């Protein structure tokens, strides 16, 4: 999707005239999106090894604070971004979905690392969920095992571009009377129940490949 910049509908010549007198012109949407993308507060939610790289990103060498995202909140009620870093197991999935439901809109999800995208190296395990995008919608996928801190910053910049291109009238979370809640899966005798959420995820259809 193309990233929209803070464009205003005003003529360029008039803009530069006004700037000389100290008046800056922009659209309401541009200002609103600029405020939102420059202060994304992540939820402190590290599951496994990728969490250590996330903490390293927040430390002195790779400093995520210069992007405005340095304030990790412990409570989901105060966070806008959930960085799912690490393997999501079937035992942990109901808690992840519950946490996602508790975050207020607008909210975003970055899946960091191969394990939360699709199960990763542990894909054949009996307790491993093959990707958290079976239950909640994901905005940015970030491959790597673990992704370097620079890769996490790149993912954050991509998310910022996505936020820039969102428009207030068309976004569903800004409509009246919206109540969006994703169903929480339950523990079954040999797996989770339901195995995936049909509104969010469709499994790949396996095709038989014949030769000749």
């Amino acid at each position, binding site marked *: 999707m193309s990233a929209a910049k803070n464009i205003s509908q005003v003529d360029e010549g008039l803009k530069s005239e006004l700037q000389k007198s100290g008046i800056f012109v922009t659209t309401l949407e541009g200002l609103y999106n600029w405020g939102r993308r420059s202060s994304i507060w992540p939820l402190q939610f590290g599951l496994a090894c990728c969490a250590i790289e996330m903490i390293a990103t927040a430390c002195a060498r790779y400093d995520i604070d210069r992007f405005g995202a340095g304030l990790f909140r412990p409570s989901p009620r105060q966070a806008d971004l959930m960085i799912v870093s690490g393997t999501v197991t*079937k*035992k942990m999935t109901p808690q992840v979905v519950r946490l996602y439901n508790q975050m207020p809109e607008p909210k975003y999800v970055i899946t960091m690392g191969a394990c939360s995208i699709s199960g990763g190296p542990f*894909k*054949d395990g*009996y*307790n491993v969920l093959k990707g958290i995008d079976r239950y909640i919608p994901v905005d940015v996928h970030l491959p790597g095992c673990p992704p370097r801190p620079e890769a996490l910053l790149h993912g954050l910049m991509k998310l910022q571009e996505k936020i820039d291109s969102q428009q207030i009238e068309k976004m569903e979370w800004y409509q009246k009377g919206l109540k969006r809640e994703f169903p929480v899966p339950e523990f*079954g*005798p*040999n*797996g989770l129940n339901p195995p995936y959420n049909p509104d969010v995820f469709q499994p790949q259809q396996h095709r038989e490949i014949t030769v000749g």
Partner: protein
Amino acid sequence: MKTPTEIKQDIETKFPGTQLTLEGSSLVIPKEQWSEIAKFLKNTPEYSFDFLSSVTGVDYKEYLEVVYHLYSMEKKEGPLTIKVRTDCEQSLVPSVTPIWRSAEFQEREAYDLVGIHFTGHPDLRRILMWEGFQHHPLRKDYVQDEQDRPVEQF
């Protein structure tokens, strides 16, 4: 440290009538006498095996086995490997948690993943999988729910 052969002879003299076998360097002890032999190994001063390092449950297809590795912290000796066998359906093995406290979580794990029941354990319930899970995953005949591809394929 005494060799496993000498330990075997000592146990056979102290508990007459037990049938021990020696496989490699590990002792195979029948499960009925395991509790008393464990107390003997811990309390006699010339052995003083006071540190139970590891408890593992293994599924050989005809029988289930529990493998213990014992060390002595006081004398800085070890290891002594002990194997206790039981059958597959009604697998009951006496628990050594009253003797060595470190067996508490490890026996719960062997129960959860392999399905061996330990009699005398203070709190035997699942530790790694959730409570409603109905199978024992580390057995060789366990089939996963909803696999993308059969596991032996690669």
